[in-house]
C-alpha cells in the first residue's frame, strides 16, 4: 500500500493508543510505506485452495481441570505493582474528558 498517507498513520496511532510526535508521524509514514511495499510481493503468490495457518502444533481444545492452584501469589503482591490503588482495587483516571 504505497499510497499510505499521513492521515492513515494518524488513524492507526489512534487505534493503537499511541501518541506520536510530528517527526514520528513523518518517519512512520515513510517507513511503513517501505515495509508494505516489501511485503506486497505476496500479492503475486498463487495459494490455490490452501487454508491459513495460525498455529503449528496441531493441538486442539487443550483442556485442564477447573481447580484452584495455589502458586503462592497473593492479590496484594499483584496490586503492589499497580501505579495507583484504593481499597484493594486498581485506581484509574476518569474516562470522560
Amino acid at each position, binding site marked *: 500500500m504505497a499510497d499510505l498517507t499521513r492521515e492513515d498513520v494518524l488513524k492507526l496511532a489512534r487505534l493503537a493508543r*499511541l501518541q506520536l510526535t510530528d517527526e514520528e508521524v513523518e518517519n512512520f509514514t515513510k517507513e511503513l510505506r517501505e515495509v508494505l511495499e516489501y*511485503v506486497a*510481493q*505476496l500479492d503475486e503468490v498463487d495459494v490455490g485452495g490452501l487454508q*491459513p495457518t495460525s498455529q*503449528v502444533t496441531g493441538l486442539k481444545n487443550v483442556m485442564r481441570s477447573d481447580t484452584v492452584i495455589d502458586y503462592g501469589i497473593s492479590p496484594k503482591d499483584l496490586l503492589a505493582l499497580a501505579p495507583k490503588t484504593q481499597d484493594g482495587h486498581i485506581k484509574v483516571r476518569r474516562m470522560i*474528558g
Partner: protein
Amino acid sequence: MSWLPIADIVAKVQAGDLRAVDLVEQALQAIEDKHEYQAVIATTAQRARERAAAIDAALKNGETVGRLAGVPFIAKDNFLAFGAETTAASNILKGFTAPYQATAIERLEAEGAICVAKANLDAFAHGSSTENSDFMTTKNPHDPSRVPGGSSGGSAASVALELVPFALGTDTGGSIRLPASFTGTVGYKPTYGLVSRSGVVAMASSTDVIGPLTRTVADAAIVLDVMAGRDPLDSTSIERDENSYATLSGDLKGKKIGVIKEYMDEGLDDNVRAIITAAIEKLKAAGAEIHEVSLPSLPLALAVYYIICPAEVSSNLSRYDGQRYGYSDPAAATLEESFSKTRAIGFGAEAKRRIMIGTYVLSSGYYDAYYRKAQTVRTKLINECNQAFQDVDFLLGPTAPGVAFKIGENTKDPLQMYLTDIMTVAVNLTGIPAISIPAGEVDGLPVGLQLMAAQRADRQLLSLASATEALL
C-alpha cells in the same frame, strides 16, 4: 578463567570438589570484569548467593541436588525471574519486579541451576543487534565495534565472554541463532511448543520459542532436556520425547542432509559461502549423503514473517497500558490520555513501528490482503518443508547472510535490519527445530552453520549437530 563443560561442573559439585558459592562468585566476578561489553542489565547477586549456599549445604547433608547442581546461568531479560527487575530492555517495564517466575527458570532451578544475571536484548526482542534496547547496545566479544546479533545478543555475548556456562534466549524469527552465529556460540531453537512460554514476555505467540546458548552442543542438549515438556500453564506446549535429549549418538554415516539451494544463492557473502561449503565437504567425507533441496517459497518467508510478527506484536503489546504494572505517565488527565501518553514514552521506536504495522495489517479492509494472505503463504511454506523432509532427514544452510555488522550500520534503515533475519525466519514459521553452530571465521568474525530437522526431531538434530561440531 573459563568454564568446564556443564556435565563436568555438575559432577564436581556433587562430588564436593567444587562449591556452588565459588561458581557463583566466579560468574559475578566475570560479569564485573567484562562490564564494558554491556551484556548484562542487572545481576541477581543476592538471591544467587543464597541459593548457592543452600545447594552447598544440601549436598553436605547428603541430599540429592539435581542435574544442574551449582551451574550459574544468565537469562535474557524477557524471562520473569526473581532477584532483579524484569524489563525486556524496555522503558515501559522499568521498575517491574516479577511476582512469579517463568516455567523454564523454575525447571532449571529445580535441578540446581542458579540464575546470576539478566541479559540485554533488543527491547521486547524486536531486533537483530541489541541496538533496539531502550538501555544500551551490547558489544560483540570478537570486535567491540560490532553488534553481537539479536535479539538475544546479551545472552550470546555472555556465553562468548565466558561469564557463565550457559544463557537463555528466545527465538521468534532467529533471535537465538543469529547472535550465536555472530558470537561463535551454539544457539538452539527447539520445536515450537517444546519449552513452555509461561512467564516469558510475549512477542509473536505463534512463533516464540525458548532455548539455550552454550559453548557446545552437549551443553545445549543438557539444558534443553531440563526445560522440555508439557506445562499446564502454556496450553501450546507439547509432550517431550521419552528419551533424554542429552544422550547424543554421533554417527553421520548415511544421514541424508539437504543443502537449501535458496540460502546458498545470491545474497550470501562469498566468504561465508566458502565456510559453509567446506563444512559440507567434511560431512560428505564423514559419510553423510548430501543432496540439494529447493523450497521455492523460501524467498517469501521474510515478507510473511514481517506481516505475522507485527500483527501478533501489536496484539501482545496492547496489555502495556500503564494501569496495572510498569511505567505510567503521571501527567495524563483522562484514562484514554493515560494509555496513549504512557505508550508514547514507554515504547521505543521499533516497538512503535511494529505496533503500527501490526495494527495496519489487522485493520478492517486490509486483514484479508495482508494477514490472511501471509498465513496462507505460511501454509504453502509448511507444505514445502514437509515435502523436503520426505526426502532428507535434515536441512542445512548458513545461519546469516554475513558476519556481524558494525554498530550503527543498519539503524537508519529498518527494512535493511529486517533482512538480517532472511535465513532464520522460515524455521519459526514452520515450527521446526534448528541450531546454529560455529563453522569458522572471516577475518576473526565467527560464521554459524544452521542445521534443521522436522518438527519434534530435536533429539536427532542435537545428535547430528554434535557429530558435525566434532568435524569442524
